[in-house]
């Protein structure tokens, strides 16, 4: 079995791209190899951010590294992504991002004009999200040692008093909302990747969610759990929350907002939009009596016009996600397993 890289007792012998696809392989890499070395109670929660107390104030810290091909895509670029992604990882626990750090790994020969475009877009995204990059680092590596440009950002934010949002806090009866059309980022990226290049107007949804979350919290609404579904799509996020809280979630396919172009592109490629990446969507599990108000506030936000209630938590106990299909069938919805490749035939 050695060559197949899956020795059951010792785990994989080396890292493959499958470990980076956001699904179960990535989860195994983290829990089996990283967690034992860094183990502590905060990390152990495996949330998108670590929450901790300093002198009575509750702070959240998060970090993310951005590697995207192509670097520029309709609706954004790696710069905007690197600000929004980190701001969103803080927002989903209710923390308002305040300060960011940024690290750049740049390939020798990278165009200064492109670099400046990326920096400008970082500046604009940071202004929009009202965060400041207060420390940064650059490294230049030899041609071939990285693909153009990689960016890492970390962010720190403060949690308002009394706000307790975690994927472990979902209750039976909670209503599930999503803040808009799903799958736009993933389709925008793949449609512009070399070799595919099909004609579409689909733009990435890459956006900071901090304002939307602020608005929800400001009127006293208290979602039990929030996440921004990125790699692995809506289906993976719903499963992560279902598992963390041990609940059964039922989604109604007809209620999930998918734009016609994304639906068509998915049909063409053989993709399921529930597994396609987003970069500016909020999934919220809220108490039933707060559902309508949360929906209204999402829809008032410029990035939440197509927000919708898509399902509810049926019961506590079994951790799983079901979908009522458009034609009245019922099926199990799994996490992303493997990676979605365009169909061959």
């Amino acid at each position, binding site marked *: 079995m050695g*060559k*197949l*890289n*899956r020795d059951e007792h010792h785990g994989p012998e*080396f*890292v*493959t*791209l*499958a470990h980076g696809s956001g*699904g*179960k*392989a990535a989860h*195994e890499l983290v829990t089996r190899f990283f967690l034992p070395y860094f183990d502590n109670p905060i990390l152990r929660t495996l949330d998108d951010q670590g929450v901790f107390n300093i002198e009575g104030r509750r702070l959240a810290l998060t970090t993310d590294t951005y590697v995207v091909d192509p670097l520029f895509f309709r609706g954004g670029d790696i710069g905007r992504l690197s600000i929004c992604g980190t701001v969103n990882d803080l927002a989903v626990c209710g923390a308002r991002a305040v300060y960011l750090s940024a690290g750049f790994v740049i390939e020798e020969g990278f165009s200064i004009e492109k670099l400046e475009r990326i920096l400008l877009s970082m500046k604009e995204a940071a202004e929009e999200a009202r965060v400041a990059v207060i420390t940064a680092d650059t490294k230049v590596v030899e041609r071939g040692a990285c693909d153009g440009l990689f960016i890492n950002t970390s962010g720190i934010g403060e949690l308002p008093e009394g706000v307790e949002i975690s994927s472990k806090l979902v209750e039976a009866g909670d209503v599930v909302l999503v803040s808009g059309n799903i799958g736009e980022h993933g389709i925008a990226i793949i449609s512009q990747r*070399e*070799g*595919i290049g099909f004609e579409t107007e689909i733009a990435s949804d890459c956006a900071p969610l901090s304002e939307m979350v602020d608005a929800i919290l400001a009127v006293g609404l208290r979602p039990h759990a929030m996440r921004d579904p990125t790699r692995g799509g809506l289906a993976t996020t719903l499963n992560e929350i279902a598992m963390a809280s041990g609940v059964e979630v039922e989604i109604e396919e*007809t209620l999930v907002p998918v734009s*016609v*172009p994304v*639906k*068509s592109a998915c*049909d*063409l490629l*053989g993709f*399921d939009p529930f597994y396609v990446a987003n970069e500016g969507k909020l999934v919220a599990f809220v108490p039933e009596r707060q559902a309508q108000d949360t929906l209204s506030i999402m829809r008032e936000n410029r990035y939440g016009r197509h927000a919708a209630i898509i399902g509810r938590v049926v019961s506590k106990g*079994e*951790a*799983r996600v079901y979908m009522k*299909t*458009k*034609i*009245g*069938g*019922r*099926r*199990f919805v*799994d996490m992303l*397993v*493997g*990676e*979605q*490749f*365009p*169909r*061959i*035939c």
Partner: protein
Amino acid sequence: MARFTAEFENPDDARLLLGKIKNLAQSCDQERVRFMEVCGTHTVAIFRYGIRELVPRNIRLLSGPGCPVCVTPNSAIDQFIRLSRMQDVIATVFGDMMRVPGSDSTLEVEKATGADVRVVYSSLDALNMARANPDRQVVFFAVGFETTAPTIAATLFAALREGIENFFILPANKLIPPAIRAVLDTEDLALNGLICPGHVSTIIGSRVYEFIPSQYGIGAVVTGFQSSDILYAIYLLLRQIVEGKPHVETQYSRLVSDDGNPDALKIMYRVFEPCDSSWRGLGLIPKSGLKLRGEFSRFDFSNRFDVSTAESSEPEGCLCGEVLRGKKEPHDCALFGSACTPEAPVGACMVTTEGTCQAYYRYREKRS
């Protein structure tokens, strides 16, 4: 494009069709009706819409051999893995091929340990790579059915015209009608009708399926991929049983004609000719593969590289072969869901999205 799909996903139409299906299923006087969907895209669509549990209990939907990655035998995969290890070779493949286990490795593992394996979306991308890397040998793993073969043929035409000398293919394309015949020849399968592929039929047309009713006495319906398409096909197959008149019908007439796409077929058969070919699960099927014709044979990798492999072996305990013939269902396999999952696939049918085992796994009732 959207117009071609949205109107075939109407829940009201689905309810209407399901009602008609129920009536016919009662009057068709058979304890069990067994239909096979030949194509992997249909398998996935049937699960995605939840059709299996909406149709009456006496209708059984079996999955067939229509997944190009799944039917590629280990011997071809082993050869391509050997090729990928060679100095100067850029090995190009469709993404789904990366994780298919050969006898002792996968392309994903080879890539992680140093081989230059690159995922492409089309054979034309592979040819571009050959143009851009004149000092390297670019080999494309040509898998797929009649839908991909014409593009590969066009790629080789371009390569010939431009005199490109560093581009090769490992020809492993396969033809659907001979595979259907092989499935129908499987003992004890007792199928009552076939849901024939939509994409493939846009190229080969519907007339090629005439042998199904005339020689095997069962109906064949060329079918689209939306919910109403599939339900309507089931309705048509049932109606044929009730009326006792099995024949070929085209439900997917918005894209499929009797004769298919003559231009695509012409270029495909200018470059390729049918040859006997090995299928995972179905074994050697006469005239079911495509080999390069005379002037194009210079693009066949085997004229340039010697990659004779030791005996290829199938993974122990894996039932992919039986699953591809409809003889077994994925949960009949002891490896399914335990030793064999999409993260750590043992058999090819678990690797790709359109593989029967992966479809059963992803849409299974409970997390195991």
